[in-house]
């Protein structure tokens, strides 16, 4: 273990420079983030991820945000275990009818101010699952959505751009 830790000390950092927040995302967010909330949160957001019916592809890329290349936590963004600790719900998947109530209850358990990010094509418009008897609809049909990050699944860098836009909006004063 010492060898490995020592190597890591000598090695150049793998973490890549942050991307710029996406303009389109900034525009989407301009309306939903108010100044009072911004001041309260400062430069940090806690995110609760909710899989409301995804194929698990989106979850894989969310996991990737934690690796050394993207290192999400350097931005003050972190994933929390409970909606009661969260500022942001990051929701994936077409909302299945079997998950609808769980998503609604998670939303209600999240304290204000809160934002909802619909991540992935399924969360935005149900993707290939549109029209199924088992899907309640996109995330916006169940809870209000503030930001959409498209892709199937979105690459980690795209997720990061979206989340940074959210951070930029909430911390601008």
């Amino acid at each position, binding site marked *: *273990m010492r*060898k*490995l*830790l020592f190597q890591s000390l000598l090695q150049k950092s*793998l973490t890549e420079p942050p991307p710029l927040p996406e303009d389109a995302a900034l525009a989407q967010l301009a309306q939903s983030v108010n100044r009072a909330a911004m001041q309260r949160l400062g430069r940090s957001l806690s995110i609760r*991820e*909710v*899989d*409301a*019916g*995804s*194929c*698990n*592809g*989106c*979850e*894989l*890329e*969310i*996991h*990737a945000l*934690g*690796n*050394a*290349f993207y290192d999400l936590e350097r931005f003050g963004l972190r*994933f929390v*275990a*409970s*909606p009661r600790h969260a500022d942001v719900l990051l929701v994936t*998947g*077409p909302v*299945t*009818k*079997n*998950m*609808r*109530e*769980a998503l609604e209850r*998670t939303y209600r358990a999240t304290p204000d101010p809160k934002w909802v990010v619909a991540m992935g094509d399924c969360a935005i418009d149900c*993707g*290939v*699952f549109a*029209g*199924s*008897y*088992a*899907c309640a609809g996109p995330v916006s049909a169940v809870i209000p959505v503030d930001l959409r990050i498209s892709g*199937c*699944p979105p*690459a980690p860098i795209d997720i990061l751009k979206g989340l940074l836009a959210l951070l930029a909006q909430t911390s601008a004063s």
Partner: protein
Amino acid sequence: MGFVAALQEHGKPVAGHRPWPRVDGDEDLWRQAVLGLAAGEATLLGLWSDGQAVHLALAEEAACEPLVLSLAVRCGRFPSVAHTHAPAMRLERALRDLYGLEVDGSPDLRRWLDHGRWGLRAPLGRQQNSDVGGDTYTFRTAEGPPLHQIPVGPVHAGIIEPGHFRFTANGETVVRLEERLGYVHKGIDRLMGGAPIARAARLAGRVSGDSTVAYALAFARAVEAAQGNVPPPRAIWLRALMAELERLANHLGDIGAICNDASFSLIHAHCSILREQVLRVASACFGHRLMMDCIVPGGVAVDVASDRIPLLRTLVRTIGRRFPELVELYDNTASLQNRTVTTGILRAELARQYGAGGFVGRASGRAHDARKSPGYPPYTMLAFDVPTRSAGDVDARVWVRIEEVRQSLALIEQIVDRLPAGATLSAGQGGEDKEGMALVEGFRGDVLCWLRLTGDTVTCCHLRDPSWFQWPLLEAAVEGNIVADFPLCNKSFNCSYSGHDL
């Protein structure tokens, strides 16, 4: 004569089912098949329906040439398989939910995928309207003064898929775990019915995102079997390249995540770096990090440019150099071994009875691998081993993954060395009704695809995830462990929720 061969002889062959035989049988033959499964003469591969008949796929362990036995549904009923052979239980409950079929003699009448939320009963059968308030679900009980229940989910603490776990614990010790799944049921079977082949292929690739290559391959091979279409050699080799990259990425992710669940984050951090490198090379070669929609019926949708081949060689070299250090660390860290060794033991008999595939089966001595048997190209031309262990604990499942990482690296090297040139797509012929089937080895086990085509339209398609036979085994493996070790056991199984819920 073998058991499966005897069944085949007594049934009435169905024309146009490829590559393996399908026979129609009566209730007597059905019962013989079920008794044979229960006696261990053959392994259950799948149980599904098209509304008119129920289909049972089975194969003998030694010579894995599968057979599909079909029984016409009479008055909406069929005789229970699970009554005699428990591994069919959840498949049977799902059939009842989706098609409204009554199962004679079924030992468990609770709904499985249908939570009473669809506004519809039997969505692939009679389609009766119902309310959406949700059914109550009665969990199995374990009673006595010191026992208490712990409900977990469907929304979990980590970034994982939704499902409900009901633990009954005696202090710290799990006395019973019961799973309730179906939360991510998206109605894929019905979306498949009537879909053009191209759309159905996209759906198949989204049954379980982590196995998108395996699913796309299973679907493509089933379509090709039905149409009698053979993809060009280069496509066949590129598919195997993608399949091994997917296996590599998932195993690296899993090994790290299991160590992380034992609070050893150093290996997790390093494995995540290696996994990211695999995904970046996949993206550079195929234009998509998870290689979604890259495999299509008839071949592949993207070819690898020759200037990307060195990336693959560098990747194999890098992981070949870095990975052994991590394995050494895993092997030499007593605090980590203390968590994984003898935790979550799955007995070999259960693995065999349930026909558990992938690392779950192999860590408990079941060596089945669809790449070897029934086998498909190009693996028949490649050299690789199927590693097994006999301990059946979390540690054994880690070691099987470690060995498979090595095998996949060697396979990628062989594929890159021998990649043939030429076309990558061959068009299939439509025409009259045809049926096709395929068994493909994904990273967590064998994925089964069965479908019926009319012209260029899929009229019926069933995809069976390996998790169907692994989820119930997790319940058995957890028994007697402490509650705090459940995440570790669960991660070492890493069953798919989406692949199971369909």
